[in-house]
């Protein structure tokens, strides 16, 4: 099969800091200067109180809230990688703050809800972006 690159992020002004941080090796999300809530996806202002936000590095730890095993060829760039696991990870930094992520190096039968995961940064093929994937914690 022809090597098709995976989808690339169409970065906007609000998300610029997220991708810039990853490129610098940091996993960061927006945090409110006033109410101190993290938020994702990003916005110009705090969703909750309208104050200014700034990107702040996260701990990189989390827990599997749910997960799927992708078996049907669906997303360009991943057609030869089936099956693979995508987990919805709840981050340690704030209850309910979640991000869907590939679970790198995990066999589907190794994965269960509640497992601890740890961030790993990898280059995204087909461009010059870095993405945060997660791995099962030791």
């Amino acid at each position: 099969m022809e090597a098709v690159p995976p989808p690339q992020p169409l970065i906007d002004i609000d998300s610029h800091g997220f991708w810039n941080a990853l490129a610098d090796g940091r996993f960061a999300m927006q945090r409110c200067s006033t109410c101190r809530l993290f938020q994702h996806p990003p916005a110009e202002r705090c969703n909750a109180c309208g104050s200014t936000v700034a990107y702040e590095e996260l701990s990189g730890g989390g827990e599997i809230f749910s997960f799927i095993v992708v078996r049907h060829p669906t997303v360009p760039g991943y057609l030869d990688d089936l099956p693979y696991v995508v987990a919805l990870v709840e981050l340690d930094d704030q209850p309910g703050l979640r991000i869907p992520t590939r679970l790198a190096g995990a066999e589907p039968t190794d994965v269960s809800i509640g497992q601890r995961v740890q961030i790993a940064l990898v280059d995204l093929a087909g461009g010059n972006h870095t993405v945060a994937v997660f791995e099962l914690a030791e």
Partner: protein
Amino acid sequence: MNATTMDDIAVVGIGRTEFTRGSGRTTLGMAAEACRSAIADAGLTPADIDGIANFQAGDSHPGLAVARAIGVDQLSLCLDISGGGNQACAVVANAAAAVRTGQANTVVVYRSMNGRSGKRFGVATDNGSSPLAVGGEGQFNAPQGYMTPPQWMAMWTKRHQHVYGSTCEDLGQIAITQRRHAHDNPHAIKRELVDMDGYLNTRWVHEPLRLLDCTMEVDGAAAIVITSLDRARDLPQPPVVIHAGSESHGQGGSWDQWEDPTVMYSHYAAPLLWQRAGFGPTDIDFACIYDCFTYTVMAVMEDFGFCDKGEVGDFFSEGRATHGGDVVINPHGGLLSEGYIHGMNHHYEAVHQLRHHAGNRQVEGAETALVTAGAGPYGGALVYTVDA
């Protein structure tokens, strides 16, 4: 007239095209056929239509174009709603509100889509860029190989299975029952009966969802005509009353940040609807539950109070969701088996049944129907009744 009901508005006409896997037609052509058919069914002509409403996701012709194609030159209401199946009740409720407030007298509401041969909702969108470039919330997820509704729904399903112990067999009961209903529906695209082995032997799409957990994408259109109940009573078809409705759209539409994926929008919309309607789930004769996936039926039925958490599988396997049971769920086979006209065909079926025109799949003595629209963080619902 109660302030929170819409009892003075009725559906007077229904129309639809054939549902196929490849129409070879434009969405304009199919919309026009469905609208003309609905108008004729109502005993009206295009000259009687002064409003048009539809919803779409950039995949269909707009209302003004369809109005021209059915010979309506002037509209006092032209409502194009942006969205998917989550808007399938909102479009009807807003058309009804327009009639009630005098913005229009008679409105045709349609959805037309080449959902199989054109833009497919279960497929990674090709926006023409190479490599695919994805913006909005998708920019964080698509690069991870996670970007389509079947994936999001599988993620929610897995959480429900973890928390409540629901199983794939429970989902299978929904698919099997609805297919049995579709077996008696000549308009349905999938009519062959399926049993549990057959369900379990279909391939995984994204675990824990199999092929038969997913809607059957089709090309086609469906339309209904709405007017005041006063006018409706002078028309040939028995009026079907739009009794009450409610909507809930939350969490910015995020499938990832939604607090608890074991419930859906209906967790918020259901209590509002029952309060407005003045009755509850045991008063409903049949329900057209929006069923983009089997899990949507499961969570929405729990939210509307048809059964307790984790009991939907038993509810179906014990025959409570079919003829002779508590409530007939998707008597036409639903989007899973009749076809995915984004929920507009649910309105067609509800009206068809409440007129008692459904032949060998008629829900006996049907007087009240629930129609739901949408899944996950967004959607709505309507209750239809016969004219008292």
